[in-house]
């Protein structure tokens, strides 16, 4: 068999790799503990959350170390098999459903990222949410989220993956709506939940179709069920499946990825999700949860590879959706005044890069972009939170409440600048090594049009981030940062909890730097935003491409053969030039527009009709929300409800009326002849009997539900007893 070659070699393993299933189990258990005893602990349960994440991080780190040893023990071209352990969960009528872990390079890299960022965000939240009324529940939900994400990452089979996927959806809902007293927050939570749920149908359909179509083949050839991801991968690459079938499966799974990863046209929930507390935006809605869709595509890559014929076509559904998302989200980021919304659209746009890369066969650069993006985007969000916490009185409005903050918050400013340069893809920050690789490989694999999309996106990214940086940190302080009462969009928690009274005494007032619990996570993340790119630095030659060596599977029965674009400085310098152009142009436009109030630029969107139309189009987010809420939802609610009403009034009532007329005629005759004369006598007597019996039974009708329940159960017990006696 083709699979036999893999077993021939002894690979090194170790305790951490064998027991990696503990990584999600620890936070899951801690979640229950926090709910049970959290409120009675000195730090209200937050210490349990932080400790559990540290434990998970330690195990993930150990597993990563042992995985690296395993890769080296396989030699130069040896195939490294994942560390698989499975347990039967339940079995019935010949079907066995297992749960288990499958640790490979992709799992390791995402495990480390998720555990690391979860730890930092929990530490940050200790300070950011101090005094919040639902402090304990916040940490419980964060911990449960980490458990779900980690479970999804180590999943050996689609059932565990689905389990983790759904836990994340639930936690996202709980955490966006953390301050549900304000209606906008609870609406945002519902919107996120329902949008993602709609797309999740695709995941259920995809998993079911995979099981039904692959189970027989995988049982025969590999001895695993059709839920096993390894089995599915081998099946998809075996040439066995019908190409239409696997295309339909790939589309169904991709729909789920679109919803979870906020891709066009279902991206509308992600910017609204910024209603949640900032640590939540940083952890769930930028660095970890939203990459779940990208992870799904990367994890089941053989299915998409075969289904969409990735290396053989010049464009497919994944690249088109990814490319469209890059451009439209980046364009929306220009018209936002809320700093978190700029970052949210930026996240959507960066996820578009990852999708586009995966669609074009650039698997490794996309996975590496998950890695680097997590650090710098989490850092940017935490910076925004730090500003709101210590300078702008919980307002996120850049135009009204920020400006000139670089003097007051040196650490926040420095970390923000490092992360912004990383996001824009400036050499030698981490984003350069991942984003440029995606663009380069997309072009190399024959997707020329999408390479141009990527370059345009890089220009736009640099430009909108420069605008946001300028508005936040340069110019004169405005609004709350200048010591006035804050305007506009509030972070809800200061209006209705104890935080407010305490905070207004000692943390508000003049803008100042945040304390260490906030700045240490910022500095750690910024250090990684600066340095993590060097782990896979293509420009410095083969020896520097460590992550590729550790993570990328060799082509085998389980992984498709992929190609890498050779790095050349000519191509890299073109994209760097584009990025610098974006920064410089945006800088001059921003200064002209916001400081000098240049009359040629101010109000341009009002004066030029074509620009006004475009601006309104962007401000209204392409009218997608209006489309979903007014057209689709109303179409369902309006015409269908009206149709049902019409059917009820005309058809059902018509039938009823004619039946009623006929029966009235008949009953008149019966009344006169039979009822009056014959039946009445009998009825009068029986009525008397019934009334007496009713009088006797009246006390039973006490109106007390529990008494009725007791009677019901005693009657059932008597009936059961009779049944038993009759049957013996």
């Amino acid at each position, binding site marked *: 068999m083709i699979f036999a070659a893999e077993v021939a070699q002894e690979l090194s393993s170790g305790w951490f790799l064998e027991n990696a299933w503990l990584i999600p189990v620890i936070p899951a258990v801690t979640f229950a503990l926090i709910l049970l005893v959290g409120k009675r602990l000195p730090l209200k349960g937050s210490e349990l959350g932080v400790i559990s994440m540290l434990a998970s991080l330690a195990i993930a780190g150990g597993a990563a170390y042992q995985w690296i040893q395993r890769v080296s023990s396989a030699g130069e071209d040896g195939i490294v098999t994942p560390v698989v352990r499975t347990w039967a969960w339940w079995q*019935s009528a010949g079907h066995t459903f297992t749960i288990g872990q499958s640790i490979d390079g992709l799992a390791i890299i995402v495990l480390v990222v998720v555990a690391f960022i979860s730890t930092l965000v929990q530490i940050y939240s200790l300070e950011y949410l101090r005094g919040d009324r639902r402090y304990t529940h916040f940490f419980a939900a964060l911990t449960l989220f980490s458990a779900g994400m980690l479970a999804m990452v180590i999943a050996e089979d689609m059932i565990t993956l689905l389990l983790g996927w759904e836990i994340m959806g639930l936690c996202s809902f709980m955490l966006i709506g953390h301050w549900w007293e304000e209606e906008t927050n609870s609406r945002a939570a519902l919107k996120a939940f329902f949008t993602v749920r709609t797309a999740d149908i695709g995941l259920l359909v995809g998993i079911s179709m995979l099981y039904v179509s692959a189970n027989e083949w995988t049982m025969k050839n590999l001895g695993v069920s059709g839920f096993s991801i390894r089995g599915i991968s081998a099946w998809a690459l075996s040439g066995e499946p019908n190409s239409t079938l696997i295309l339909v499966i790939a589309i169904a799974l991709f729909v789920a990825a679109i919803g979870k990863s906020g891709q066009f046209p279902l991206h509308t929930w992600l910017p609204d999700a910024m209603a949640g507390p900032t640590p939540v935006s940083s952890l769930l809605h930028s660095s970890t949860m939203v990459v779940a869709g990208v992870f799904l595509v990367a994890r089941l890559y053989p299915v998409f590879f075969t289904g969409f014929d990735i290396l053989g076509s010049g464009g497919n559904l994944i690249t088109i959706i990814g490319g469209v998302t890059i451009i439209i989200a980046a364009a929306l980021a220009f018209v936002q005044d809320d700093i978190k919304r700029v970052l949210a659209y930026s996240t959507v746009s960066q996820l578009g890069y990852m999708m586009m890369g995966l669609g074009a066969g650039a698997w490794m650069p996309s996975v590496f972009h998950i890695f680097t993006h997590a650090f710098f985007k989490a850092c940017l969000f935490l910076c925004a939170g730090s500003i709101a916490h210590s300078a702008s009185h919980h307002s996120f409005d850049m135009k009204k409440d920020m400006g000139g903050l670089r003097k007051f918050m040196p650490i926040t400013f420095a970390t923000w600048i490092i992360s912004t340069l990383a996001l824009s893809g400036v050499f030698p920050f981490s984003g350069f090594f991942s984003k440029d690789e995606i663009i380069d490989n997309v072009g190399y694999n024959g997707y020329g049009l999408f390479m141009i999309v990527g370059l345009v996106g890089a220009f736009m990214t640099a430009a909108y981030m420069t605008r946001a940086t300028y508005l936040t940190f340069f110019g004169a302080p405005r609004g709350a940062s200048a010591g006035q009462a804050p305007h506009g969009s509030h972070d809800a928690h200061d209006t209705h909890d104890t935080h407010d009274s305490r905070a207004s005494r000692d943390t508000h007032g003049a803008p100042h730097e945040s304390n260490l619990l906030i700045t240490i996570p910022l500095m750690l993340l910024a250090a990684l935003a600066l340095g993590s790119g060097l782990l896979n630095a293509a420009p410095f030659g083969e020896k520097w491409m460590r992550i590729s060596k550790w993570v990328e599977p060799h082509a085998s029965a389980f992984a498709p053969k992929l190609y890498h674009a050779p790095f050349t400085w000519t191509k890299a310098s073109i994209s760097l030039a584009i990025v610098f152009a974006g920064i410089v142009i945006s800088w001059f436009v921003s200064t002209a527009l916001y400081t000098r109030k240049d009359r040629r630029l101010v109000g341009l969107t009002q004066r030029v009709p074509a620009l006004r139309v475009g601006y309104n189009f962007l401000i209204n987010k392409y009218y997608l929300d209006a489309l979903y809420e007014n057209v689709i939802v109303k179409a369902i609610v309006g015409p269908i409800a009206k149709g049902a009403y019409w059917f009820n009034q005309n058809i059902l009532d018509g039938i009823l009326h004619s039946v009623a007329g006929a029966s009235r005629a008949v009953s008149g005759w019966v009344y006169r002849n039979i009822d009056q004369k014959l039946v009445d006598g009998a009825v009068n007597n029986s009525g008397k009997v019934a009334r007496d019996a009713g009088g006797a039974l*009246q006390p039973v*009708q006490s*109106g*007390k*539900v*529990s008494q009725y329940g007791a009677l019901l159960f005693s009657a059932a017990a008597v009936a059961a007893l009779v049944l038993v006696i009759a049957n013996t």
Partner: protein
Amino acid sequence: MLVNQFLFLAAILFCIGVYGVVARKNAVLVLMSIELILNAVNLNLVAFSLRNGSVDGHTFALYVIAVAAAEVGVGLGLVLLVYRNRRSISLDDLSEMKG
């Protein structure tokens, strides 16, 4: 066979559920007790299905779970409306049906 243990557990759950329905005054707790009863039944279905080696019992249990979810939805809706009208969800106050 392990079926006995399953049946014992189910019986205990059922009894706790019945106790809850009969003795509790709080409407939400009564709903929860009803859930316990339904889950005791589920446990029986699954246990027998395991013994007979067929999926019928599992299928039934899944249906029961779905119906139970709907039932809780309606039940909580009722409780919410009752609460809005009378600011209390004690079942003892709801005795208009007294004969």
